[in-house]
């Protein structure tokens, strides 16, 4: 079932009410002025393998765009969760750290990862995809790419 502002593209849910960093498959949802919630989109999750573990830097940590805010383990591969924005970590999702499957089951809702106070919103947000048409076009193209490479099932 589609929610307002949500699509299902080739079986993958896609929320159009937020911004996307195309290199990392992270979404950024602006909440209060200067603050944002960050999570991972379903394609990023699917191409990681079954999520086993998530861990985050402590609240209060200063983040730099392009650097890790935590670690993700899937298929015995520990890799960084890369921040799409700079700022200060305001909150981390303990529920996802306890049960990484929550992020796979509800990537746009209860499976969010961290909340941040943005330090360079004006400089960094324009680099994220925000237009629903552009987001959809990118998402469709990525699914096609991953299917061609055999990373996700046909």
């Amino acid at each position, binding site marked *: 079932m589609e929610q307002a502002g949500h699509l299902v593209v080739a079986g993958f849910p896609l929320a159009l009410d937020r911004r996307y960093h195309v290199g990392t498959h992270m979404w950024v949802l602006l909440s209060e002025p200067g603050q944002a919630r960050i999570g991972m989109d379903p394609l990023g999750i699917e191409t990681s393998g079954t999520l086993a573990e998530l861990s985050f830097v402590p609240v209060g940590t200063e983040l730099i765009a392009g650097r890790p805010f935590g670690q993700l383990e899937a298929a015995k591969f520990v890799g960084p969760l890369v921040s799409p924005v700079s700022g200060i970590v305001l909150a981390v999702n303990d529920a996802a*750290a306890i049960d990484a499957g929550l992020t796979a089951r509800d990537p746009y809702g209860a499976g969010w990862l961290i909340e941040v106070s943005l330090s360079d919103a004006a400089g960094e947000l324009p680099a994220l995809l925000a237009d629903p048409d552009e987001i959809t076009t990118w998402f469709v193209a990525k699914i096609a790419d991953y299917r061609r490479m055999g990373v996700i099932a046909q």
Partner: protein
Amino acid sequence: MAEPLRVIDFGCASPLRSQTLWHAIGYGVSAGAPATLSFTRPAAPYVCIGYHRGIEEVDHDYCRANGLPVFRRMVGGGPVYLDAGQLFFQVCLPARALPAARWQALSVLLEPAVTAFRVVGVPADLADDLEICVGDRKICGHGAGQIEDAVVLCGNLIERFDHERASRVLAMADPDQRDQTLALMRRFVAATPVDPVLFQASMISAYAEALGLAAVPGELTGTERSAVAELDERFASAGWLLGPDRPAPAAGAGPCARQVKVRAGVWTFAATCDGAKVAASVVRGTVEQVRLRAGGLNGSTLGAERALTGVPLRSVAQVLAGFGDPGRRFAAAFATADPGRL
């Protein structure tokens, strides 16, 4: 001309150094050192735990009593026992040289190892779950991780495997689970005692060819030697051994089963609920062996165990519904097992 694949054979190294040497390469490759394939063999046995795993999964009393140090690595997977019967390899590449999709990156890093096993006469396959197997037996333990801007995959040639010790170092309070775990390890984890020198040579050829690189002998850079010293200190510290901060389970969260994974799809668990104790082994979703202990079954424990053997894990509650109140308590204990947490 092909870029170099630096090859470093560290030979026998202390338990600590058998970890820190290749972690240091991760920092080196991230800083610009060439892609590297390295080898090392621990000079003494020890236990190593994956980056995220709880330190309570290791039986520290046993390890202390047997002189087995415990270290935490920066790559994934569970607690494992390592000794001189295992030759470890590590391949380390800049992250940008690998597909961004981790599953695909793992395939790229594991497939040359499969080729190398085959060259030395081991009919290995890369299973769908990305484990290197012969038939249904895992023959190579692996883990991977990203260290700054480098990705490293480590694995092993198991020349001899001490199944007894490999299961004994794991914390398991339930003796039935311990027995079941050992039995599954013997069945699903196998050594492939080939000539390690030939294996090493075939690994070098396989990785150089698959990655399009030219193998050249090398050594650690100055940066990497400095990283070794830092890592020696870090890995020996109590804080590092504890692992990353993990939140406590929410208040009111139910008990969790003690679960031990033997290989993908093969695991044991032990759980207790209202005095009903369960220890079971699960192979690809089916209960293969089960031990039940509780009062109130009026001698029908054996019957319940028989009824559960061969049953899909998801159907256990249905079967136990025919065993009254004790059956319900056993079903509640079974319900704490979660293959998603393996």
